[in-house]
């Protein structure tokens, strides 16, 4: 066997082991969600459980009004947040990419400075809750932190500068198009790859967010799936610290372990379904962003 072939085999084996090690924890909760509750409590989490069941999923669909609602909140917030994020980000990036705009340098620095310095969560929390009163409103899940990030703005701006030829803009100008029209009819349609990347980053941020929920949401009606999971885990830990055990807590209604696992699985599901189709945009975004933010 040649050196190169031998190395190929070694690389495949080592990476194969790493892939298994990486996937086992995720597989564990998927299996737990399909394990009978009794078995789970008796034998604990296992990769080869004694008895399988789909009860947890049936329960979620039939009796899980709270879970279904939280799923709806997650979908709504992700959809609205991502749409708003992509539009505002692209609009902000456009003037930064145009040499004809005389305040281009100031605007770029204005966006860039947010990467260098931050006031931190304390003033931010007080502003959002006291001035804008967003506590326990749906806006608390959409507005703070994620709507426009300098990282995404620079991603789009670099694409506009490097991948869209000036001659296209000039041609549109000769046809009498204004800046607004050029943005909508030329730049936006031509920047599909970078828009896909930004949508992906933004969508992931909104879907996976729990920090905004932790700070701003107490109303159970506005729990997203992540926040619902977080609150359930908090309750379990609080109970444990008080009673030393989960047993005999019949008075407090907590979903069983397998239902919790099923909730975590449906929380990951959209990512698993969409990711294989968008991986290339994700990777491109990471590479471009790392090289020049």
């Amino acid at each position, binding site marked *: 066997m040649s050196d190169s072939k031998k190395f190929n085999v070694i690389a495949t084996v080592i990476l194969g082991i790493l892939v298994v090690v990486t996937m086992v924890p995720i597989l564990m909760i998927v299996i737990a969600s399909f394990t009978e509750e009794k078995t789970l409590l008796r034998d604990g989490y296992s990769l080869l459980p004694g008895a399988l069941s789909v009860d947890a999923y049936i329960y979620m669909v039939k009796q899980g009004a709270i879970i279904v609602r939280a799923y709806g909140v997650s979908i709504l917030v992700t959809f609205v947040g991502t749409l708003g994020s992509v539009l505002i980000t692209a609009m902000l990036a456009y003037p930064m990419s145009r040499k004809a705009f005389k305040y281009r340098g100031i605007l770029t620095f204005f966006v860039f400075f947010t990467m260098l310095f931050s006031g931190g969560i304390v*003033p931010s929390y007080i502003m959002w809750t006291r001035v804008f009163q967003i506590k326990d409103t749906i806006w608390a899940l959409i*507005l703070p932190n994620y709507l426009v990030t300098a990282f995404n703005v620079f991603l789009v701006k670099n694409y506009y500068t490097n991948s869209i030829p000036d001659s296209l803009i000039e041609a549109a100008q000769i046809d009498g198009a204004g800046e607004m029209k050029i943005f909508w009819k030329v730049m936006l349609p031509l920047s599909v790859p970078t828009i896909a990347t930004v949508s992906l980053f933004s969508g992931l941020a909104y879907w996976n967010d729990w920090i905004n929920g932790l700070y701003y949401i107490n109303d159970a009606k506005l729990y997203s799936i992540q926040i619902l999971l977080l609150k359930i885990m908090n309750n379990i830990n609080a109970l444990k610290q008080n009673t030393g055990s989960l047993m005999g807590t019949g008075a407090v209604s907590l979903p069983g372990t397998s239902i919790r696992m099923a909730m975590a699985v449906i929380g990951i599901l959209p990512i698993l379904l969409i990711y294989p189709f968008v991986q290339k945009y994700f990777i491109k975004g990471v590479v471009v962003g790392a*090289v*020049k933010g």
Partner: protein
Amino acid sequence: MRKSSKTTLPFMLIALPGVVYLIINNYIPMFGIFLAFKDYKYSKGIFGSDWCGLKNFKFLFATDDALIMTRNTILYNLVFIVLGTVAAIFIAILMCELGERMRVKIFQSCLLLPNLLSWVVIGIIGFAFLSADTGFINNTILRTMGKESVSWYMQPNVWPLILVLVFLWKNAGYQSIIYMASISGFDKSIYEAASIDGASKLKQIFSITLPMLVPTITILTLMAVGRIFFSDFGLFYQVPQDSGALYAVTQTIDTYVYRGLMQSNNVGMAAAAGFYQSVIGFVLVVAANAVVKKINPENALF
């Protein structure tokens, strides 16, 4: 004159929503860091609360808290930078040896997957392993070995290891993307020449790939050093399940600020810790960037 304002106005209008958002979300809170010098009372508000000079800082640094959270934040980051870089390069080099595209794609998808999960879900996965009653480690691993169960969430000494493992599990695949991109950009003819000269694959990795990666490693490391005063809140809050017994080894500046603000209602000390993080963080980012600029102006942020 008229022509210039005619072309400037539309640009400003297009940028307006984003500018307004950044003013609200980023710039107003920047000015809010003066709160660290106030004795904040909810009833009096930001402007009504009395100034208290350095009182908040005196309290903060009088306790062990400041030392513990600073030590934890910096030490974990240092370990993450070193081991994270080693793991990412290791994966990237092996990936580039796979050759076959489909296999690369599948392996890469799997290794990236943890990075796409939320910290809440990762916290639950951790709980599945570590829970005292039902956890995989106690029930399957320790029981088969005939050992006693361990209350993992009460054992501070094991948590540095757990947190490092979780960090690597979540981030190594992600960080390897950048190194893979660098390696695949290297000139193939260098490797061909080395092969002809009889250099083994291993030799090629140590004498060609690694030396050529040095600029990328340097830049990424410097950027990470610039962020050394910031920690991933989710890793240090969700994974230990906010267990009080573990604070000595899991408290970072970010978890301290959260707890001060939301749990112990100690806004003054949280604001002081936030100020400390913002200001030193800013100095470090600027300093790291200055060094990057010296090495390679192309990679500098500004």
